[in-house]
């Protein structure tokens, strides 16, 4: 703690002020988008931990987000609701017994995801690089297949509805702020340094005595914990979830976000989220009728996604480091000057 004191407090106060303002003055649609952004900040920051900071190219977030969402939804739905919703098969008794309040439900989501990550870490980290990517992709996929084919737990493809909603910015924004603060703390701690060492050169890190397996597992599990919570918040925001929400596309979006912002930078993750999620809504016009200089180009649904993939490719080709690279906001010179130099460890 105690490393960047004043800056942290100012940052948090500023953010909270923004939240209060937004919640009370903006219309529902904007609040919805901001909620989305907050949730994705949580997801992006945690995904960044395993991908950017520790350098393990994993493609698993959609799996953990799915787990978090389902656990939260199942915990929040009352027993009667479950009997009503489960159409294909009767809900399993274990599911029926699950009934928690909001905060415990979210915590449970995080814990379950973390436990799954812990179990997966042992087999997954035996491989590296591309293989790791494929294995994590595979697990994410298997989780989805499981969700579809276990109707007594998840109601299959029908999904779950009527999830109690708490869609105000205080929850999502608050948790987002907390996540970022925690992530920054991790990054600047000795664990964070070890993770960066593993990223930069795993063999060298091992040679100087870092237990790379432990570090990777730690990053993976922490990542999963927050991704699970993010998933839970997503379930609450949407009030209805189904397996097809958690496709590879979700991971792809997170990938674009952290690459754009800079792999390894938390500030970058935040900026990336705002750009990508806000951009997706803003670029909606690309899918509708377009009129440029009076020429009616007609409607081409799907153009939005084409533009997004091009952006990703262009960033990878020309600005691989993303906007912030590996640095944080506090590493920029003008920021340091503005807020005075504190002891940066």
């Amino acid at each position, binding site marked *: 703690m105690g490393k960047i004191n004043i800056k942290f407090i100012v940052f948090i106060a500023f953010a909270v002020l923004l939240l209060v303002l937004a919640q009370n003055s903006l219309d529902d649609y904007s609040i919805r988008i901001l909620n989305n952004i907050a949730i994705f900040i949580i997801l992006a920051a945690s995904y960044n931990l395993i991908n950017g900071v520790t350098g393990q190219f994993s493609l698993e977030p959609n799996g953990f987000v799915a787990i978090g969402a389902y656990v939260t939804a199942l915990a929040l739905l009352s027993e009667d609701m479950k009997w009503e919703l489960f159409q294909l098969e009767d809900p399993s008794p274990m599911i029926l017994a699950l009934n928690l309040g909001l905060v415990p439900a979210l915590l449970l989501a995080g814990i379950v995801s973390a436990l799954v990550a812990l179990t997966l870490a042992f087999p997954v980290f035996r491989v590296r690089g*591309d293989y790791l990517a494929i*294995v994590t992709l595979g697990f994410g*996929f298997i989780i989805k297949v499981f969700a579809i084919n276990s109707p007594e737990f998840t109601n299959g493809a029908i999904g779950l509805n009527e999830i109690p909603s708490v869609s105000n910015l205080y929850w999502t924004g608050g948790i987002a702020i907390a996540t970022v603060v925690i992530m920054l703390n991790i990054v600047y701690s000795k664990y964070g340094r070890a993770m960066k060492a593993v990223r930069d050169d795993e063999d060298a890190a091992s040679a100087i005595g870092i237990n790379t397996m432990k570090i990777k597992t730690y990053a993976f599990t922490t990542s999963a914990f927050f991704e699970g919570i993010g998933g839970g918040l997503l379930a609450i925001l949407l009030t209805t979830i189904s397996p097809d929400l958690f496709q590879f596309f979700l991971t792809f979006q997170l990938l674009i976000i952290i690459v754009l912002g800079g792999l390894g930078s938390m500030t970058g993750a935040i900026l990336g989220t705002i750009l990508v999620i806000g951009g997706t809504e803003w670029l909606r016009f690309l899918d509708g009728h377009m009129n440029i200089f009076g020429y009616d180009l007609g409607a081409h649904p799907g153009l939005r996604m084409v533009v997004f993939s091009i952006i990703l490719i262009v960033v990878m080709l020309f600005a691989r480091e993303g906007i912030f690279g590996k640095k944080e906001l506090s590493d920029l010179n003008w920021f340091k000057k503005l807020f005075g130099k504190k002891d940066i460890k």
Partner: protein
Amino acid sequence: MDLLTFLQQVINGISVGSMYALIAIGYTMVYGVLRLINFAHGEIMMVGAFVGYTMLAVFETSLLTASFVAVLVSVATGVLTDKIAYKPLRQAPRISLLITAIGISFFLQNSINVFFGGTAKSFPIPEFFDRLINIGGVIFTPTVIIVPIITMILLMILLYVLYKTKYGMAIRALAFDIKTVSLMGVDANKIIMLVFIIGSSLAAVGGIFWALSYPILTPYMGIMIGLKAFAAAVLGGIGSVGGAVLGGFILGFTEVMFVAFYPELGGYRDAIAFVFLILVLLVKPTGIMGINFEKSRF
């Protein structure tokens, strides 16, 4: 189940397996020389299928012409992808290449989506392939027989090129150690381009075969098929052409048999490929016939 049904399934499994094999070869060859999992390869197959569809449905050419054009366009796509997206990143960290490949994959899917519209397209199967042949109670279409035969022929040609020609030797050398071989005067980029040409044309043929067997095309069809073909390549031993084919057949066969015996578990069918994938990577990452790439670098 009775013998007849069993035979039916065997033939079916071989057919599906051949298509996986054709596409798996492309993955394995690109990985061999570039150590890159070309996520966009499934889309190259999809592009081939769509071009075939356009030629047959819009221009009403013969199947042969359609296939030819499909191969050309797929090859162009593959080669362009390499030139524009992969070549500039030859020295970049692997993660960048992977992300770029994913980007290209999405780009192709969505471009086809925008260009052709989001609805499924029905592939016009030529009369010849749509007939039913009945031999001793086992019923099938000509497609089911032609696919494995042509796959085998193409495989033979490929193996000949790889092991009996200069270019083939260059490809194999590059797969072994790209840096040293470049120093010895082999133009790596030209050989890499050749690899993409071969892989993409095989994928295009695979796409046409797929369309002939299952005549519904969507822009997103390449995703699952591509991933499964990749799993097949890994299963057989990534980097090995023979392995890719072997993996393709094993996967196709297993999928078909699984559903044939347990159709109530049909929902899990897609997971089989991933289970294979994960098991192989955990138990024997080099696959059945594989070469250990991590060790052969210097």
